[in-house]
């Protein structure tokens, strides 16, 4: 069987990739995609820990399902905001939104 540490390593790499995407992308939708990668890393972590340390206790499984659900709600609200942004400015580039600063 694949050892637990491999899963954790994949999750860590995925998390860092997502964070890199968040920090380097300028398009709001691409940033959201980076966030989703980070959340997937969290889910891999949760499920790997659950499967390897205590498959008889569902807490980890439930946690992963809830993370999925809430991430969907978050994406819905985020995309709605991006649509409003696009209607106002014809762009979803975060470099261009700078009315508020100082």
């Amino acid at each position, binding site marked *: 069987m694949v050892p637990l540490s491999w899963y*954790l390593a994949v999750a860590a790499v995925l*998390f860092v990739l*997502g*964070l890199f995407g*968040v920090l380097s992308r300028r398009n*709001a939708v691409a*940033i*959201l995609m980076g*966030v989703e990668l*980070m*959340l997937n*890393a*969290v889910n891999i*972590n*949760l499920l*790997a*820990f659950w499967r390897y*340390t*205590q498959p008889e*206790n569902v*807490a*980890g499984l*439930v*946690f992963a399902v*809830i*993370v999925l659900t*809430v991430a969907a*709600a*978050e994406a819905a*609200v*985020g995309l709605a*905001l*991006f649509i*409003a*942004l696009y209607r*106002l*400015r014809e762009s979803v580039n*975060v470099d261009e*939104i700078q*009315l*508020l*600063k*100082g």
Partner: protein
Amino acid sequence: MLNTLNVVRLLPELILLVTALVVIFVDLYARRRTALWLLPGVSIAGLVLAFVAAFAQWGAQEVVAGTLAADSFAFYFKLVAAVTVVLVILASVRYMRERTRFLGEFYAFLLVATLAVFVAVSATDLITVYLGLETLSIVSYVLTGFLRDDKRSNEAAIKYFLYGAVASAIMLYGFSLLYGLTGTTDLAEIARRLQAGDVLANLEWVAWPAVILAAVGFAFKASLVPFHQWAPDAYEGAPTPVTMFLSTVSKATGFAVMARVFLTAMPSLGEYWMALLYGLAILTMTVGNLIALRQTSVKRMLAYSSIAHAGFILMGLVAVTAPAGGHPFNGLDGVLMYVVAYAFTNAGAFAVVAAVEDGTGDATLDNFAGLIARAPFLAAAMLIFLLSLAGVPPLAGFAAKLFVFAPVVRQEYYALAVVALVNAVVAAGYYLKVVKQMFFVEVPERPAFAVARGMRWALWLMIIGVFGVGIFMNWFAFMSVRSAAGMLGL
């Protein structure tokens, strides 16, 4: 443990949920003229009922369904949240009426946000902590961007959303490590296993990164430097009543969750997170104040000032004495005192900003010039709130500062105390700048303007609150000491 489900303990939450649904239905069926007073009326009635339901259970000490604590610590925050949201609703009646048609949704979202706060402050399980905080965040994004045709409101919501989504992902990664390390999501059980060293072999070292990652999420909610960048923009761009909510209730929730998770799940890692919070406290109050000094918009200045105040609240958490027993100056009671004093004071200051925006269209420092001649009541109220923010006795701000400084000095964290003292003086500087503008700069050609009725009530209540907390300091101190000691699992 479903057999321990006691529905009465969930009554405040249920009332809020039902009220939010009722508000949506009222909005569907009532005529516009009726809806204008009925919507805020129903919302306030629901909040008052929730307040009563929470107050009646004061003294209960139990865990509901294994995930929500009905303890006096949670009730304290619920009561403060309910009162503050009532004030927010009173202040938003005219403000929102003139800016949006979707009033039912606005009040329903405010109620759901309060519900999320209720869940978050009583959560005793990593899953409910996440659920509560995230529900609050998602609803707050919507509220911040509620004026969707307004570029500033939309921009504020986008920035808040992007920061918030990343912060909550980072916090979750910390939670997942904590879960893997200890094999449980229950806070008390995590504490027990960390204490006993009953953790996943070869993985003990992830405890420290897990603490830092989780702290990022809480620090984001409480707008601590360096996770504060969203706050000034979100506070400035959001509809001002929403800013009242974000800067008081939402921030208090961040502190409540932080206190509960760190104190009940990680007492054995105390030296780690206390050192972390010590640094964050100094950074937060200093950076917040220095940037506030050079603001030209009063709304934005108050935003930075509320970041600085987060640093002061954090002082209480840094100085928590273990165990946080039932005596005064235990640090945690300072957090509780600060939260209630700050709720009235800061909500009040932002309410005045909302009233000035209503009267003059904008909240620049320039628009506050000669306010005493144009709207004497507003100027007087603002003076009281600013003096309270600066910590002048006998106002609420003084009581709050007393209860966070005393434990810090008692723990002999003199460096922190000195930095905080210097910061309090710096803050007084920019508060007085507004006072000078209101009272001593005369601008004869500007017209006087009236204050809406709901806003006037809200301001009176907050003025009473500011004086009440300051004058009946003993009673509030007694309550906060009791609540601090009542946190389950301490």
